[in-house]
């Protein structure tokens, strides 16, 4: 037993020694606005010959090759035109995408605003050489060089499209037809156990948005800038909602199945989910009266991409007018390319989605990474950063 104890003691000491070495702190930056610059990463100077394949991380529905629906395919023509085979990994949430990009195994990512800055400041993505992407010229001007896709006038990605998180319900099970987010937040809900919500800490912003309109004395001006009191109110609202929740979803087809079977009858959705359900079940989706959170997605190139040439070929392909129109119609979002509106199958598509209206686009609260430095400009208080949101999300789910 004495030998055993000695061996264990040595092992424990070894573990502690290992923990200490490796230096403290790493590179990478901290919150923007503190004067810290993103790490220096080189951008591609010129496009060379294709490498034969490209690895992409994307939202479900952005990289379709016909296996989901034989009529929905813009990958096969791409491979035919460029010789680049596409390997696609679908991410369910922005967090997943950030983690995947950190592995260094992927060349491209379709990042939403709550992932872009983390990737930029983490040195995981490179600035984009827009001269190498001819179709960039046609991108709507109100999407270029925004706070979430550029730093100090340097563009870090190509805008793809934008949309809102909508409220969907089963028209045969939820009456009267809801017009407000209150239907998923009310305490004694008749739909207890059948409500669904998006499974990510960023959903706290939806609660904050609801409180912004229904509890004005909390003085929330930006759902991503929450001080202690405002944050606690949002957390309490979601903890109360948790009692009525049936399932949280991050896999969009899981939500499709849940709504079809009737396990979920009301909750947050993306337009693509409503489109996929189609006529298989009676559903409807609206943008409620309080407004909505949403996402503005940007294609970004990895810092040490193994297939940079194919990556740039994909960038030009995916924002070309015809393909951008195809993706936007399949997914149900406003396309970033202004000329895509001429190529949509439904001629009223761009009107329905307000694709060219800068004013409408400005009303959606796009996913943004919350930081300790309040995003609404307040200086006297510290806001909760994303780590706090993540921790709270675990507590909300219980």
């Amino acid at each position, binding site marked *: 037993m004495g030998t055993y104890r000695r061996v264990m003691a040595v092992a424990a000491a070894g573990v502690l020694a290992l923990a200490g070495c490796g230096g*403290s702190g790493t590179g990478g930056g*901290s919150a923007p606005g503190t004067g810290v610059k993103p790490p220096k990463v080189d951008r591609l100077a010129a496009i060379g010959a294709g490498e034969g394949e490209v690895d992409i991380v994307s939202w479900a529905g952005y990289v379709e090759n016909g296996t989901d629906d034989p009529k929905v395919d813009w990958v096969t023509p791409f491979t035919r035109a460029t010789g680049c085979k596409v390997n696609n990994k679908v991410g369910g*949430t922005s967090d997943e995408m950030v*983690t995947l990009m950190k592995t260094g195994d992927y060349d491209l990512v379709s990042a939403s605003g709550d992932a872009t800055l983390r990737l930029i400041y983490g040195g995981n993505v490179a600035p984009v050489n827009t001269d190498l992407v001819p179709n960039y010229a046609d991108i709507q001007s109100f999407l270029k060089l925004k706070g979430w896709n550029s730093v100090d006038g340097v563009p870090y990605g190509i805008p793809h499209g934008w949309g809102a998180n909508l409220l969907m319900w089963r028209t045969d099970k939820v009456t009267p037809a809801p017009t407000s987010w209150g239907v998923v937040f009310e305490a004694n809900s008749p739909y207890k*156990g059948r409500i669904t919500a998006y499974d990510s800490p960023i959903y706290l912003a939806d609660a904050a948005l609801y409180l912004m309109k229904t509890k004005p004395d909390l003085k929330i001006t930006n759902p991503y800038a929450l001080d202690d009191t405002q944050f606690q109110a949002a957390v309490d609202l979601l903890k109360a909602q948790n009692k009525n929740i049936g399932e949280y979803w991050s896999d969009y087809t899981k939500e499709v199945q849940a709504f079809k*079977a009737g396990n979920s009858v009301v909750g947050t959705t993306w337009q693509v989910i409503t489109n996929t359900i189609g006529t298989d079940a009676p559903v409807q989706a609206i943008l409620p009266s309080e407004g909505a959170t949403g996402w503005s997605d940007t294609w970004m190139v990895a810092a040490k991409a193994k297939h940079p040439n194919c990556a740039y070929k994909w960038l030009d392909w995916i924002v070309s007018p015809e393909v951008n129109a195809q993706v936007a119609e399949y997914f149900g979002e406003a396309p970033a390319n202004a000329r895509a509106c001429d190529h949509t199958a439904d001629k009223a598509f761009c009107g329905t989605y307000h694709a060219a209206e800068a004013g409408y686009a400005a009303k959606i609260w796009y996913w943004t990474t919350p930081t300790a430095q309040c995003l609404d400009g307040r200086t006297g208080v510290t806001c909760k950063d994303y780590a706090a949101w993540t921790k709270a999300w675990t507590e909300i789910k*219980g």
Partner: protein
Amino acid sequence: MPPVPVPAPAGPGRARAPRPGRALSSWLYRHARVRLGLLLSAPLLWLVVAYLGALALLLVSSLWTVDTFTGDIVRHPSLDNFRAIAGTPVYRTVALRSVAVAAAVTVIDALIALPMAFYLAKVAAPRWRGWLVIAVLTPLWASYLVKAYAWRVMLANGGPLDDLFGGPGHGPGYGLTATVIVLSYLWLPYMILPIYAGLERLSDSLLEASADLGARAFRTWRSVVLPMIVPSVFAGSIFTFSLSLGDYITVQIVGGKTQLIGNLVYANIGAAGNLPLSAALATIPVLVMVVYLVAVRRLGALEQL
């Protein structure tokens, strides 16, 4: 069996240098420690260096933290993660819930497996026994994911289980109950196998002797059979307990909004990119399993695996 070649006896005047291979094996025969070392070298290299080393690395990373904005790992050791786990009630709740689920699954499986294994080993006609064992083992080859998804379909609103309980909404639906049911279903063969093997080794003469002494079936069962197969039950429980404790996939498929410790570990390493917190959370099931293993080892369960 093929005949063993026997070398010609070396008599006087026929002194012959042994073949090199023979010399080596004779030398090895005399040096048992070297033989042991050779036998143990490769496996220990694999298990200790690769596996235990990886676990140690995980333990070390649980002492690190993550830069909150960029997500890069800060290699400055501290007990922050463990303090956070100990201080936040939700982690305690989830850990206890996971242990409870694992225990429930183990008990349910043991209760179902015992009569089945007993039937297989002792009551079934030898002619049918082979086929019945095959019938019990075949589901092991059906993909775990497909089985879990089949249960999701069965538990769906208006599905077969709802009909069984009297109409849409009356069944268990998705949640903790569904998770326990499905996990019990998935691990049942792993519980049946060791108990069946243990019962097979139980000699019939013991049972006959008990009957000769006047014991009815239940008394024989309680006083003779059960004590002898307790190690087998615990051997099976190692599988059901550990497989349930770390599972995160079944919960995602049929668990509704339930969170188990596996989900927390997975969420923090995948979605949140926080490997140190993940590693710290992972130490909980590791500790539970190590304690459990040491406990059942004394009962002789490890030999019955």
